[in-house]
């Protein structure tokens, strides 16, 4: 386990909110860095933040509970459609729309979690794909609600807090998304260190053992799935509000698979891993696809192979190991 995710370490710090502060500072730093690197492409960064929330959401069920899923985009997409429709229907206040996304995500998460966590292993994986495909098919067919293959457009939320209008350079969208991400990330940092979070990690390791300490496994997994849905719902809501359209891609199998790749890349079972996996993958993809539009997928594939070979437990773990090696050498000298 990496230093950042280990429960034991944080307790020994004198400052009680060290981890939370670290979360805020890191996200602010990433935001500034992103702004400096891509000042003309804030729309890309805004999209990146929405997807990052989905990766964090996936980490909760896959990384912390060991649930294998390839249908996680369903939670994101359903919320995005719900927020889109709410906005078109007259609810234009951004904070309220976030709430709509959270509610839609929580409900979708609870329902799909109730189905998926009944099973283990391959049946679980197949069921998650089936749920994802079902939602994708519905999104395509129910064109009166989703706009079908044309997508749902005309989503124009009010200014944030009544002050900041969503502008064409995506400045407001970017800052708003970044702040929301920071809030969610800090809440999650606390959540995964809670007794409930610890129990989920125990269930992931051995669910019979968890029962043998008196824990009801299934309800816990469904609750975690609902929380995961809420986080995915925030991502979906941001995506709908800031892009102004919701397309079929938001519920697609490719989206589900891609976020799983990002999570594994960064390191599952660790929020920092999810964060960095998402950021690194998407920036790499963005740069490579712009410089080499023909072979970019090949390069992304090569990157993944390299990471699996050299840091099989994810980037965050690889970096932590490297860091401790350097640190130890420095200490001896």
């Amino acid at each position, binding site marked *: *386990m990496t230093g950042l995710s*280990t*429960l*034991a370490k*944080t*307790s020994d710090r004198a400052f*009680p909110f060290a981890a939370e502060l670290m979360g805020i500072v890191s996200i602010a730093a990433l935001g500034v860095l992103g702004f400096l690197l891509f000042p003309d492409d804030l729309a890309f960064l805004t999209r990146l933040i929405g997807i990052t929330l989905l990766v964090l959401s996936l980490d909760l069920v896959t990384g912390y509970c060991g649930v294998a899923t390839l249908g996680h985009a369903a939670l994101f997409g359903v919320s995005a459609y719900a927020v889109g429709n709410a906005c078109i229907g007259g609810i234009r206040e951004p904070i309220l729309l976030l709430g709509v996304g959270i509610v839609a995500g929580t409900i979708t998460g609870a329902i799909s979690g109730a189905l998926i966590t009944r099973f283990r292993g391959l049946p679980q994986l197949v069921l998650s794909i089936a749920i994802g495909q079902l939602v994708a098919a519905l999104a395509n067919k129910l064109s009166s609600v989703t706009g079908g293959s044309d997508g749902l457009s005309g989503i124009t939320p009010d200014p944030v807090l009544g002050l900041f209008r969503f502008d064409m350079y995506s400045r407001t969208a970017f800052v708003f998304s970044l702040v929301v991400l920071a809030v969610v990330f800090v*809440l999650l940092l*606390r*959540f995964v*260190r*809670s*007794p*409930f*979070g*610890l*129990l989920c*990690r*125990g269930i*992931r*390791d*051995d669910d*019979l*053992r*968890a*029962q*043998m*300490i*008196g*824990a*009801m496994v299934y309800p*816990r997994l469904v609750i975690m799935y609902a929380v995961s849905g809420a986080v995915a719902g925030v991502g979906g809501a941001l995506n709908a509000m800031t892009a102004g359209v919701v397309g079929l891609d938001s519920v697609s199998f490719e989206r589900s698979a891609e976020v799983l790749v990002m999570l594994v890349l960064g390191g599952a*079972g660790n929020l920092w891993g999810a964060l960095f996996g998402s950021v690194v993958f998407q920036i790499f993809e963005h740069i490579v696809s712009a410089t080499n539009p023909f072979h970019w997928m090949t390069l992304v594939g090569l990157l993944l192979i390299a990471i699996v070979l050299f840091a099989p437990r994810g980037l965050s773990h690889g970096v932590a190991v490297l860091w401790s090696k350097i640190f130890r050498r420095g200490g001896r000298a």
Partner: protein
Amino acid sequence: MTDLLALDKVSRAFGGLRVNENISFRLAPGDRVALIGPNGAGKTTLVNVISGGLPPTSGTLHLEGDDITRLGIPARVRRGLVRTFQVTRLFASLTAADNVALAIMQRKGLTRRFFSVATDMPDVRTEWEHLLGTLGIAHLARITVSQLAYGQQRLLELAIGLALNPKVLLLDEPAAGVPHDEAPKILEAIERLPADIAVLMIEHDMDLVFRFAKRVLVLANGRLIFEGTPQAVTADPDVRRAYLGSYADARRPA
């Protein structure tokens, strides 16, 4: 009712195979009982039936007078019926301390807390420090379970069992697979178990049985064929026959 745990005519069959048949016995507070029997006698099945992993085909189980026959594993654990496993089953990616802390927090109903940090609970911490200290593994608290030696894992398994404040503790071969130099620690820990709990231990090692048990149950071919003192068990003709049979089988050249 002074019986803590009561089994009445408990049977368990897998299809036509009757693994446990008409088993009845009682455990009272403070009991130290060993369950022995040749391989394949149905000992582990019986532990699974008692702990709730397998429902009995017929018969009833009572804990402190309450019928627990239909209760699942977690409900039995919460009533104080706790087991350890023959092969250690621990939370492998968590530290030793977190393994015990989790059991304590679950017992106290703290695992429903979503936003308090697990390590910021001083009373939980005091308790796991005490438990690990009692078993002589306090120095391993911060080590991930997957990196612990097997004997240390068995001690941790005991620590988790104790963290649940058991009234009845089922120990499934607590010393199996433990290296010789570490076995005494396990014995010591078992001998120091709280006096008021009832302990039922499955064990092959007769030395351990004689040292630990005040009463012995012998299971052979799914039936309870003997219940009595350790001194009487070796003299019993049925027991000798059951064991002789299995030893004769074991010694037959392949």
